[in-house]
């Protein structure tokens, strides 16, 4: 949006945004108002996200990838301001890569989570970023860490985030049990994300899933028409 404005400077400045010729979303920040989820299972983690990025009421990107690799076996799920989360993820990717080379060993998920937390907490007044850090390492296996807005860090077996997450707390509380298999986790995540996407205007598009384990990372996409459907009433 900023690029468009600078290419047509006279247009944007002379016409007030209250006018019908200039849509509301030109001045809005790009947000990944979103639904993200991460679940631990024995041997790895499953992560998932919707694919909608909005600027106000306009969907700037309907096929966004909110599952960002930080290292070979560590991913983060981004929610909040798209710019803030991209910037933080870039910084942490650099820091973690450097740290891993120094150690001569794959980094720990807890280390990645702490790097996110350090940035999110130090710049908490300026940032709007809710991040789930998930991955696999040799020391503790599959782990999910939640770094919400404000910069708290907590490890949870299952965590949801983003604007759409409020609608699926009940579903998640009643359907998650410890000891699920990888496929059960994938089904649970896909169902939960579909439910949230049906209710939250800022979430939608396709469901992106990834499973991370010792063997590596497996990514898949479930398209809109293949999602489980719940709106029978």
């Amino acid at each position: 949006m900023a690029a468009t404005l600078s290419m047509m400077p006279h247009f944007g400045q002379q016409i007030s945004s209250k006018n019908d010729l200039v849509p509301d979303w030109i001045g809005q920040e790009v947000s990944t108002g979103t639904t993200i989820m991460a679940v631990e299972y024995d041997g790895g983690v499953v992560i998932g996200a919707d694919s909608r990025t909005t600027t106000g009421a306009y969907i700037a990107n309907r096929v966004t990838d909110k599952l960002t690799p930080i290292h070979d076996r560590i991913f983060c799920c981004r929610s909040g301001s798209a710019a803030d989360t991209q910037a933080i993820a870039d910084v942490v990717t650099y820091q973690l890569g450097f740290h891993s080379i120094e150690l001569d060993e794959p980094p720990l998920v807890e280390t990645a989570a702490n790097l996110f937390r350090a940035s999110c907490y130090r710049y908490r007044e300026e940032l709007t970023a809710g991040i789930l850090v998930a991955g696999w390492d040799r020391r503790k296996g599959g782990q999910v860490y939640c770094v919400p807005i404000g910069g708290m860090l907590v490890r949870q077996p299952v965590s949801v985030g983003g604007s759409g997450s409020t609608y699926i707390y009940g579903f998640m509380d009643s359907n998650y049990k410890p000891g699920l298999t990888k496929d059960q986790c994938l089904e649970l995540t896909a169902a939960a994300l579909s439910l949230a996407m049906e209710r939250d205007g800022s979430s939608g598009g396709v469901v992106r899933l990834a499973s991370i384990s010792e063997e590596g990372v497996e990514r898949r996409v479930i398209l809109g028409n293949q999602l489980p459907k719940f709106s029978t009433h």
Partner: protein
Amino acid sequence: MEKRCMDSQVKGVSTGTTILAAIFDGGVVIGSDSRASIGGEYVSSKTINKVIQVHDQIFCCMAGSLADAQAVIKAAKFHLSFHSVQMETPPLVIAAASVLKELCYKNKDELQAGFLTAGWDKKKGPQVYVVSLGGMLVSQPVTIGGSGSTYIYGYVDAKYKPNMSREECLQFATNALALAMGRDNVSGGVAHLVVITETGVEHVVVPGNKLPRFHDE
């Protein structure tokens, strides 16, 4: 980004709450939690009953400002009993819902109250109506409301099926209320449920310690 429910900006004592109503095969279940709070910081009542009887087989749940809701219900009860005497027949559920809707819509600038109306009548059997904050009236097979309802949209969408049995629907309603009370700090206490069928009305109260517990509790 974080959605703020209308209820949390309500003036005075608010039924920051969870209410729900669902149709099953042969009747309808309507229920609520029992907490009334001031500003989300003080629980002014742990056992308030938000399921109000407006006629023999028609019940309402209120959400929003408790004062506004009580005043509207009082006026609605009067209108409805008068209407019922004039018609010489028990009122239809949609009549009760319409009375509430008229009051909410005509006074929308002063009021902050929403209602679920559920009941049974001879014409259309079990029905559920929603009157929202601005006075819209809509009929739905299942509906939830109040601040705690945001957390159970996913659960209700996934779990509700039309034509459930009475036991299944009661279990569904109890679970949904318990899940919402577990996540919303202004909902809690006991679960008040009312089952309305052709034959009559049954109250079910599930105390806090008998509510279903989920994995992390």
